[in-house]
């Protein structure tokens, strides 16, 4: 098992430490090429190092409501992946919803008139005059470095960001974007001090200053909870409800536009190891507190439909809760050590986690247990995600051989890609009868009812009891430890802890894009079919 992963690494021309990094890597479907990089201005470099870890959020701003054009297929296709929240709008089933939210996107008061030509492209300079007419349509990368949140245009080749927002009191740590936001506030930013802001991304882009504008402030100066915000997520279709995960093991539920409470008066947590939910007595923010575990909650992720929320943390447990009923559904322990990241598959059947045991875990919601361990990282796994835009090259539509593509990044500076083929997972011996993890198309398979009852957590499995996966590709993408990855229709984005982002174009996209300033939206129009097919795959 060790040798196989090493072989994969060697196949891709791993260069020894200190050597140059290759600008491409090969997969069975073709070459992924480094298209461009995004980072913060160099002057900022040394100062912020090591204090906070860069995370990146993808945000797509659509046409302003005053724009006459109806949402086009390209608009749907360039759907942004809201990091972790998985609130993506893809495929055929979402058309009507897409229409309605575009209509409801008209909260930005300062915006008037339309600027149809004003896609914020490569040619635009950094010193943008304050322009309330600027409609800011496009796809943006939001990332934090030190005390600053930077915004870059994904589609421009400019390395430097187009906007920076400084925070004077504490460092930003996490952020989330909701493209379906009903009023202006679509961007959330959580700080190390526990403070949280909601703002309108468009409004930030239209302002020339280096401060947040029009922000709503929650948990001011950490008055409700002064531990660090580790993760933040909009509740999908939640009417502006969002969840913040804190380093003291709590989640808080907030509703935007609601007043903050001076005295939240949640009861004292008696047993740190027990899950408990408390609701605010007045209807002020935060409206609820979920105590998850002892120690930090490191990451949270909603299933795409918003029914479930997954949490991972210091105690090494993945927990999956029913969001509405506030009940623990299932969960289990890592092999050892804390878990650092988690992410859902588009269909809500699987959850990936990564952590301090160097393993990528695949959790099955049907089986309510770990069904595979991915071995291949040489250090902690810091980012995991399913590639929802990828389709198996030889899928014949019979749907029997289902393949999921996913990626992981680690502190070993590597990006690994994996294929999860349901009929290829080796069933380990000594498994109780009837418990084979064969792929089931049913929503809830019955054969596990005996094994693990709803609402319980499972202990760490033994090494020999879990089927192993080997990576398809292992590629050293940065010189610094990595902190995250994102998939877009055209590319894979990797980000390192120190704030460098690399954009790896998918096979087929790289050639047509390398020498041009073409916007992604344009290229999408050229290839509406391929994206359409990909996104409808496995809905």
């Amino acid at each position: 098992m060790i040798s196989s992963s090493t072989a994969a690494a060697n196949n891709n021309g791993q260069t020894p430490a200190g050597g140059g990094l290759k600008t491409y890597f090969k997969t069975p479907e073709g070459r992924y090429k480094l298209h461009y990089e995004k980072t913060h201005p160099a002057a900022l470099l040394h100062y912020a190092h090591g204090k906070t870890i860069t995370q990146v959020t993808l945000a797509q701003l659509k046409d302003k409501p005053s724009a006459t054009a109806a949402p086009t297929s390209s608009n749907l296709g360039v759907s942004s992946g809201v990091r972790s929240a998985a609130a993506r709008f893809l495929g055929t089933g979402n058309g009507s919803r897409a229409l309605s939210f575009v209509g409801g996107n008209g909260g930005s008061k300062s915006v008037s008139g339309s600027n149809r030509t004003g896609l914020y492209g490569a040619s635009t300079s950094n010193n943008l005059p304050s322009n309330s007419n600027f409609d800011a349509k496009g796809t943006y990368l939001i990332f934090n470095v030190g005390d600053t949140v930077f915004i870059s245009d994904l589609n421009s080749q400019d390395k430097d960001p187009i906007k920076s927002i400084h925070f004077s009191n504490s460092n930003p740590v996490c952020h989330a974007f909701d493209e379906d936001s009903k009023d202006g506030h679509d961007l959330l930013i959580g700080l190390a001090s526990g403070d949280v802001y909601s703002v309108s991304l468009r409004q930030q882009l239209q302002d020339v200053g280096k401060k947040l504008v029009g922000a709503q402030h929650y948990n001011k100066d950490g008055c409700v909870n002064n531990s660090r915000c580790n993760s933040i997520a909009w509740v999908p279709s939640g009417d502006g409800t969002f969840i913040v995960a804190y380093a003291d093991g709590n989640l808080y539920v907030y509703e935007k536009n609601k007043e903050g409470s001076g005295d939240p008066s949640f009861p004292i947590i008696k047993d740190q190891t027990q899950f408990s939910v408390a609701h605010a007595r007045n209807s002020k923010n935060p409206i609820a507190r979920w105590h998850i575990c002892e120690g930090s909650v490191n990451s949270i992720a909603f299933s795409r439909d918003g029914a479930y929320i997954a949490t991972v943390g210091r105690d090494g447990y993945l927990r999956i809760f029913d969001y509405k009923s506030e009940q623990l559904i299932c969960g289990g322990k890592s092999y050892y050590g804390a878990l650092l990241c988690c992410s859902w598959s588009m269909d809500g059947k699987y959850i990936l986690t990564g952590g301090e045991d160097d393993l990528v875990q695949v959790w099955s919601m049907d089986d309510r247990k770990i069904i595979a361990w991915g071995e291949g990282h040489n250090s902690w796994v810091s980012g995991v995600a399913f590639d929802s835009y990828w389709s198996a090259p030889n899928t014949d539509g019979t749907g029997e051989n289902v393949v999921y593509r996913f990626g992981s990044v680690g502190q070993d500076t590597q990006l690994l890609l994996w294929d999860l083929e349901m009929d290829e997972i080796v069933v380990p011996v000594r498994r109780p009868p009837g418990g084979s993890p064969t792929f089931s198309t049913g929503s809830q398979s019955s054969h596990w009812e005996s094994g693990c009852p709803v609402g319980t957590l499972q202990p760490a499995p033994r090494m020999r009891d879990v089927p192993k996966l080997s990576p398809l590709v292992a590629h050293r993408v940065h010189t610094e430890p990595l902190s995250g990855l994102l998939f877009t229709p055209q590319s894979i984005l990797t980000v390192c802890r120190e704030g460098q982002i690399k954009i790896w174009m998918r096979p087929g996209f790289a050639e047509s894009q390398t020498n041009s300033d073409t916007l992604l939206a344009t290229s999408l129009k050229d290839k509406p079919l391929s994206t359409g097919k990909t996104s409808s795959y496995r809905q």
Partner: protein
Amino acid sequence: MGAAGSKLEKALGEQFPEGERYFGLENFGNTCYCNSVLQALYFCVPFREQLLEYYLNNKTLTDSEETLLTCLADLFMQISSQKKKTGVIAPKRFVQKLKKQNEIFRSYMHQDAHEFLNYLLNELVDLLEKEARKAKNDTASLSPPENVANGPKNGHPDGAQKEPLVTWVHKNFQGLLTNETRCLQCETVTARDETFLDLSLDIEQNSSITSCLKNFSSTETLNAEDKFFCDKCCSLQEAQKRMKIKKPPQILVIHLKRFKYIEQLSRYKKLSYRVVFPLELKLSNTVEDADAEYSLFAVVVHVGSGPNHGHYVSLVKSHNHWLFFDDENVEMIDESAVQTFFGSAQEYSSNTDHGYILFYEGVDAGSGIPS
């Protein structure tokens, strides 16, 4: 010094563990290598308890001459019996004895903490074995006193037939490695067992302890100049060799080989590589797939950019709090601060505080699952 102590007491407040003492150790000129290791050993609770027991059992035998063992027992007793909860102690007798006994440690030069730990543990083993043999011979007619080797000697599966005594130092730190060599000609597997008190691991940039342990146990091919003499073939043959852990130790001490001899420079160089170590660890490279589970309780940290100078400090977990020991000073730190001692992802970095020796203690399986 007193003020620092009260500050720690204030920080812990009512959570100050019952009966526990947090004392800094005075530095007698470059003795931080010694202080940092002593703190890690003091907070290795089973080791401390055995040593205190040894002290109590040997106190009555006033004739015993001063050894490194009695000096260490003395020092631990001195710390644990302090009236105050915090403060500073001068490990004077211990350091004097150390310098007297081994000229390596006599100079005021910077010393290697791992070398010291290794020397100390082996010395303690020697002394305990000597005492046990002596006691056996002297008191063969009498009923053997219970404190012979300071603990029961049963339960050692491998060495039962052999002469070597199992002292409590062994019981705490000793593990068994098996070195399997498979001759590629006749396929015969030769296994040779060897004991260890700590594991010295080669390190790589941006890797984890898990990965370093995997490399330690990975298969190595012996060929060309480095062939293996196969007893069955009676000749030099190509072979495959791998190290596995046959018996995991109760206390797993991991030494990161941060000081590497660079031939081109003909001197040692410090590797500042970022090597992450989790607070919990399992050994999966064992013979029996036992998944032995461990929890980190101490880290000896080397501070500085080169091998011949610098400083040692230690991080210690005691009763669920992490403490930072820097010679005389003791501070409370947050658990999350442990990760600032992983190392640097870039070669030249302002951060020179790097985890050097890791102490993991075995966790008994079957701990409860939170819900």
